[in-house]
């Protein structure tokens, strides 16, 4: 027995030496960019994805009508060379460049029609189909099965002219077209290998890079695409995406120079990380907030909600607990170009105590125990513990913490079976409505069951208006009602995006408010 085992061990070691030796020879003078990607991608079929890690890969492998500018996240020409909008603001015409897939098949306006119909096709079951369904005329009807594909108002005027008609005038719609929900997919390659077209040997794409290898849970690597229209400006030879959902593992990889870009920093490391030169922090269109369950006593009372909000010292929280440069938030919407958010509920602890007394709970007496629901995470835990102590100390209110794992938490929140629940929101597109629309009466996301007619009316009015200050004033009115008057949720802080990347070595990477970093532009200095 012992001898067999020994033999086994020797075999393993020998095999190891062999493998290791074989690998080392493949070192060339190529520029590889290694990315810690936070999760194993769910899919490389752009019509099946919904997360940030997949989005990062999309920048390398795919390109829609437009791509995005690395500095400003504004739309840049992609497959479309230019575009124009008609006087109604509803019909967009895109002029496509003559380019091909990585296998040489031409990309035409028909490619866009077919791809967009595919994402909307109910049988595709695309999680992000709601995005095109929301904005393109006739798309929702097709997606719900009420109408056929002919109802969708997208047309190939000729081989290289593509036209799309919108439901309403939506701001920043061209920017939205850079999103993967509007991606094109190689229908001809999918038909050839329906089950395995995203495997490296079958992969066909139109981005600056093409798929080289994909080892589940280990790495996904992409190399330069020779057929890409702008290949002269693509500097990197290879991008390698390394998945790990543990932020300490990812961060250690960065510190040990095993990856070049870390898109996240563990909370426990911030104190020293903020002193480093390769730490890049930028405002990010997102908000961290606590939802009040509007149908549960005593949270039905607006004075109680306001008192709870005033009873939390957000400045200390962002300075000492989160500490990455987040800003204390009193409004749901972060400041944006042209939009001044609502002032929100501000007040001293004395004000909070007074409100609480008015509501019938002087000094917190008789106040029932408040439950704070959060999902498993270091950050949510720390914030909840801090809030708990604050409410107890400042208002004399007892509260207990309920930690649930992600899916249970989502379910509880959706059912509204909580008193106070933690939540976070990141804008799908840079517009205030992205932060507000989910709180309409009876909306699926509205677990706190907030409902106010004035809010609903203003949101509906804004949805039908063309972009501009008038529309913003409607949205602002809605936010005033929602936050400053009713205090339906308690904003805590506005996000910042954090990255570790040595910008002395890597150029073409810029912090921006959407945290979008197309690999196309990245180069080694």
């Amino acid at each position, binding site marked *: 027995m012992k001898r067999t*085992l*020994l033999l086994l061990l020797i075999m393993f070691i020998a095999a190891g030496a062999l493998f290791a030796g074989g690998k080392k020879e493949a070192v060339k003078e190529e520029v590889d960019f290694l990315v810690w990607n936070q999760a194993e991608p*769910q899919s490389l079929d752009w019509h099946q994805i919904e997360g940030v890690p997949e989005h990062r890969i999309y920048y390398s492998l795919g390109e829609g009508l437009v791509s995005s500018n690395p500095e400003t996240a504004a739309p840049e020409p992609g497959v479309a060379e230019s575009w124009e909008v008609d006087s109604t603001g509803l019909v967009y015409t895109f002029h496509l460049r003559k380019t091909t897939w990585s296998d040489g098949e031409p990309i035409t306006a028909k490619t866009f029609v077919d791809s967009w119909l595919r994402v909307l096709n109910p*049988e595709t*079951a695309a999680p992000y*189909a709601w995005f095109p369904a929301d904005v393109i005329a006739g798309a929702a009807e097709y997606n719900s099965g009420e109408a056929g594909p002919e109802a969708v108002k997208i047309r190939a005027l000729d081989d290289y002219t593509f036209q799309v008609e919108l439901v309403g005038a939506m701001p920043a719609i061209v920017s939205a077209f850079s999103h993967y929900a509007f991606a094109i997919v190689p229908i001809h390659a999918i038909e050839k290998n329906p089950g395995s077209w995203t495997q490296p040997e079958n992969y066909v794409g139109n981005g600056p890079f093409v798929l080289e290898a994909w080892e589940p849970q280990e790495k996904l690597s992409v190399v330069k695409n020779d057929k890409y229209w702008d290949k002269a400006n693509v500097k990197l030879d290879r991008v390698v995406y390394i998945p790990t959902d543990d932020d300490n*593992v990812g961060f250690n990889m960065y*510190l*040990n120079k095993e990856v070049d870009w870390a898109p996240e920093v563990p909370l426990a490391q911030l104190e020293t990380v903020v002193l480093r030169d390769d730490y890049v922090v930028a405002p990010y269109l997102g908000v961290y907030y606590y939802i009040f369950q509007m149908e549960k006593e005593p949270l039905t009372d607006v004075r109680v909600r306001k008192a709870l909000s005033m009873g939390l010292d957000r400045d200390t929280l962002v300075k000492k607990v989160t500490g990455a440069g987040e800003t204390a938030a009193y409004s749901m919407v972060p400041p944006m170009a042209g939009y001044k958010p609502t002032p929100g509920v501000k007040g001293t602890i004395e004000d909070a105590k007074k409100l609480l007394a008015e509501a019938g709970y002087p000094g917190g007496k008789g106040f029932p125990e408040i439950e704070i629901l959060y999902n498993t995470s270091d950050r949510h835990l720390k914030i909840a513990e801090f809030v708990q102590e604050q409410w107890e100390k400042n208002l004399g209110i007892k509260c207990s913490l309920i930690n649930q794992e992600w899916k249970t938490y989502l379910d509880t929140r959706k059912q509204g079976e909580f008193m106070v629940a933690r939540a976070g929101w990141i804008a799908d597109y840079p517009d205030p409505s992205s932060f507000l629309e989910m709180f309409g009466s009876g909306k*699926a996301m509205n677990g706190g069951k907030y409902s106010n007619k004035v809010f609903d009316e203003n949101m509906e009015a804004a949805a039908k208006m063309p972009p501009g200050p008038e529309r913003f004033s409607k949205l602002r009115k809605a936010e005033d009602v929602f936050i400053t008057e009713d205090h339906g949720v308690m904003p805590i802080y506005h996000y910042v995006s954090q990255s570790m990347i040595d910008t002395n070595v890597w150029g073409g990477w810029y912090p921006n408010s959407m945290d979008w970093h197309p690999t196309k532009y990245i180069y080694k200095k």
Partner: protein
Amino acid sequence: MTRYIIRRFIGLFPTLLIIITISFFIIRIAPGGPFDAEKTLPKQIMENIEKKYHLDEPLIKQYARYMISVMRGDLGPSYRYKDQDVNYYIGKSLPNSLVLGSIAMTLSLFLGITAGMISALRQNTWIDYLVMSIAVIGITIPLFVIGPVLVYIFAMKLGWLPTSGWITGRFGWVTIIMPVITLSADKFAYIARLSRASILEILRSDYIRTAKAKGLKTSTILIKHVLKGGLLPVVSYLGPAFSAILTGSIVVETVFRVPGLGKFFVQSALNRDYTLILGTVIVYSVILIIMNFIVDIIYAFLDPRISYK
């Protein structure tokens, strides 16, 4: 013996069937579904997705559908990883777990038995106390501490090893060192204690005394009698331990980025990826049953007292 093996083999299937059935229904009781996300999907989209994966059908029908597909050897599509099915992901990750697991197991067997033997032969001396203290420490420090501490020392501070990765990656086989050590720690400790105790028992037994009285060489006694008998409890520990090494190593796989099966056990349960959970359950059960089966047979060879009807 052959009949026993055949009977055991056939008996495997009803157990497996019950395990799959119970798992199938239990995981459906858990709140939340595979497609719930921070942004609640609109009703229409959710309906389309559920239709695509047949999740809109009655549970019994889904069960029948699943069982039929399992009989054909198809574990179904994963609900999270949409490009490939469960067979693919298990096929990719199981070999990695097997490689890591068998190296760790081999190492802990060697070191464990050696340490146990030294300890037993020098019972109640400082060597014994030292070895057993090390062994107990191996059991009492959680893997999720050992792993990161090793990374901190050997990768971050000394820079001798890469922080994480796998043998097929760019750092090659050196990446397996720390996962093996971490994974072996508690197994080594357990085996050392088991073998010490059983070797002690054998040393006290009559037949060893007889052997000594007959004037056999100490080394012969050690190898022929003591070790063979002393291995028995270790062998019976191996079955469950080996199966567990494939499933219980989520910590090691996370800390060292080993693309193995262990992560799927916990992650798929957290993701409510029903088919992937069931796939891992099936793999685990089959391995466990086969392992126990092999252990029983080895046991029969090592221990003449056991006979099979």
